[in-house]
């Protein structure tokens, strides 16, 4: 049997795409599927997935827990744990349709939940931290159960297959969201495990990523000092935790986070105005273990918007475009033109320069 994520480190190449409406206008998953489908050749049918924000307006204040279970026994075990720690408003199968190329799907379930207030108090945690810890606990302690996503008014839909088939499988054309990201995967061997597909998520964060980072173990060993457990051994997992640590736990401004992860070269830092130089130097000095090195392009989604980022010497492609209230990012220009043939502005994103798309009225991610 081949090893799955967490048991072995699997390098992957990939395609990514993202679309957002800044005014929060909801649109179906049709466009994002079409965009990622155009980059069919950048994946190899061994993983595809989507993150969608704004899709559960009726349960906007509930954490939407998407789950994979290997069998119903796993589900029963895990549900006991979930019921113990959360008040479950509704739970049930996520609707799917038959797609000939998609086989061996796990049991796919979702729950809309609220943390049990007394437990949150007892553990003396913020609600988000409480949920994050339980998610990590389920992934670590319940073999055969995997939390696919756990944010509010958002969800991740992923699996083994080409992304367009995965979109079809999950009926994503029937959901409406204001922010969609997508991923097509080209892993170098065949894990065939649904949990290993992207996006990787934690709370509201979702990451789709293209590349193989060479700083993985430096990043991992640093982040694990802060209580994170990198059980999947994937770049995406560690990058998600880096963002979670800096943005959520430490409350750093997005600009500082980007500076830490895709730090400017020292020769460029030297040329900055003195005040700016001190600041950037301090960030690079303190957060040097969080520099993400090697080729990557990522889209980090959140309830408030997204940031797309390239490694600092641009070893991976990333293109962005704007049209009215829409903002697009993708691995290839064609994937944007496919759904927006005539953008107002289209540009190739420079290394280390973030593309930030925020909902109107929001200042930080």
């Amino acid at each position, binding site marked *: 049997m081949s090893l799955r994520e967490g048991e072995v*480190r699997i*390098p*992957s*190449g990939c395609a990514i795409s993202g679309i957002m409406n800044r005014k929060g206008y909801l649109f179906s998953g049709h466009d994002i599927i079409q965009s990622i489908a155009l980059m069919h050749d950048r994946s190899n049918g061994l993983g595809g997935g989507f993150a969608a924000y704004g899709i559960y307006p009726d349960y906007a204040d509930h954490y939407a827990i998407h789950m994979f279970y290997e069998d119903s026994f796993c589900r029963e075990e895990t549900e006991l744990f979930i019921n113990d720690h959360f008040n479950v408003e509704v739970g049930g199968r996520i609707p799917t349709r038959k797609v000939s190329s998609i086989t061996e799907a796990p049991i796919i379930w979702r729950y809309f939940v609220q943390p049990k207030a007394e437990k949150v108090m007892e553990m003396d945690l913020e609600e988000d931290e409480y949920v994050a810890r339980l998610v990590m606990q389920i992934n670590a302690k319940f073999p055969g159960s995997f939390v696919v996503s756990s944010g509010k008014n958002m969800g991740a839909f992923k699996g083994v297959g080409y992304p367009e088939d995965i979109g079809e499988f999950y009926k994503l054309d029937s959901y409406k969201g204001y922010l969609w990201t997508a991923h097509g995967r080209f892993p*170098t061997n065949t894990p065939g495990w649904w949990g290993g597909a992207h996006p990787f998520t934690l709370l509201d964060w979702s990451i789709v990523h293209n*590349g*193989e*980072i*060479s*700083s*993985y*173990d*430096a990043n991992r*060993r*640093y982040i*694990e*000092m*802060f209580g994170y457990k990198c059980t999947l051994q994937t770049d995406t997992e560690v990058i998600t935790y880096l963002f979670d640590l800096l943005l959520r736990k*430490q409350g*750093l*401004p997005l600009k*500082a986070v980007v500076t830490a992860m895709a*730090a400017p*070269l*020292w*020769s460029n830092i030297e040329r900055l105005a003195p*005040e700016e130089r*001190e*600041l950037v130097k*301090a*960030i690079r*000095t*303190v*957060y*040097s*273990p969080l*520099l*993400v*090195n*090697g*080729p990557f392009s990522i889209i980090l989604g959140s309830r408030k918007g997204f940031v797309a980022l390239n490694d*600092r*010497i641009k*070893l991976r492609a990333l293109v962005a475009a704007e049209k009215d209230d829409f903002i697009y990012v993708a691995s290839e220009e064609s994937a944007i033109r496919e759904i927006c043939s005539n953008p107002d502005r289209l540009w190739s994103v420079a290394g280390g320069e973030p593309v930030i798309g925020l909902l109107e009225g929001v200042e930080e991610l």
Partner: protein
Amino acid sequence: MKVNYLMPEFLIDRDEQRCTHCRICVHQCANEAHLWNDKKKIVYGEDQNCVNCHRCVATCPTRALRIRNYPLEYKNNAHWTPHYIKSIFKQANSGGILLAGMGCDRPYPVYWDHLLINASQVTNPSIDPLREPMELKTFLGRKPEKLSFQNGKLAEALPPQVELDIPIMFAAMSFGAISLNAMTSLAMAAKEMGTCYNTGEGGLHSSLYQYGENTIVQVASGRFGIDPEYLNAGTAIEIKIGQGAKPGIGGHLPGEKVGMDVSQTRMIPEGSDAISPAPHHDIYSIEDLRQLIYSLKEATNYTKPVAVKIAAVHNSAAIASGIARAGADIIVLDGLRGGTGAAPLRTRDSVGIPIELALAAVDQRLRNESIRNEVSLVVAGSIRCSSDVVKAIALGADACYIGTAALIALGCHMCQKCYTGKCNWGIATQNPKLTKRLDPEEGAERAANLLRAWSREIKEMLGGMGINALESLRGNRLMLRGIDLSERDLAILGVKAAGE
């Protein structure tokens, strides 16, 4: 007749065809291994005195000299090797402790040689350092767990840091143990290359104050040469608790080496023995260490990071964690193979543990306790080449010290006789006739060249791994694989086996 049981270690082989009896070797050899027979007007050798430092070989104008191991075979015995037999002869003769210079030379495993470095292929591009920037900049000092911002500015200034352009510094070697010319060479090279040298425990000679920004001043148990001016002269202060070559042992600079310059720099009377006690007599526990750390910080107004140097011993991980909690900003680990001017041979060769294992254990422990960012980790003792540096950084070091390698760059030929004060290369001596053989300008050039060469090689290897900033290698143990190591070794080093 009293027979000397000890045969010479080396044989001086003089090619009589070539030798012109010019007497250069006689003048060059402070050990008096070459002598002049005035009656016969010839030069002859005294094998017994030869230490095999190669000075004569290098300076002989006709290439008439070869030095060989003395061709004396003992009956084969895997247990009673010539080393032990000769040691007993010496001690039966003298009743004294055996002395040695430089570091442990026993054939223990060298873990550097059991670690292999990764490179990128296909899934991740390697980076060409000739075309792309490759960054080696390193900061030593305490890093806060997080930065706080206020109106887009830093809410609090960073703790003081030592900024290095390359992750290699010159290790502590005191004025007294080495010559002023050797020290000046290292100071100038450090300045040239944007790194630091370390004063060792012998104070700071007045001529070296100009290299302050590139100086780490040491405070050791003898407290030689320490006053406020000294403490404030460097960019960081290092408290020396122990040394890899002689863990648990103090130091002794014999009075003959304490000439006027050394006496002034150390602030002790001329001709007096300079004795560093084994412990600091104001540090008998970790709380005491904390007090010294903070006294030094007070004395320098919290503008300098304070390092604490310990020898790598069995319990290093726990000790290091205590040192971090005692307020040190930098921990220096000095391994079993670290060099010295003089050490008891048995201590040098059998006390302490290899730096590779100590480094791996300490880095992991500090991470388990979530305090790795609170201290920088510098390793010393055994670094021979740029790939040793790369491996050390990947295991988790922030930077390395080189001592022996630096002296070799200055001309040391590893005869291990530094404790005799007769270093023919002008390094481990205070004899003006010998020290003038080392020209500081030339020495600085050679030492800087070594750092330059290693930096280039490090950049090549980094680029090969698809990394363009050293920090992404730091603690990145996935970039290493072990070869020919036991499961236990692999576990301690925290690396996978080659092929995994």
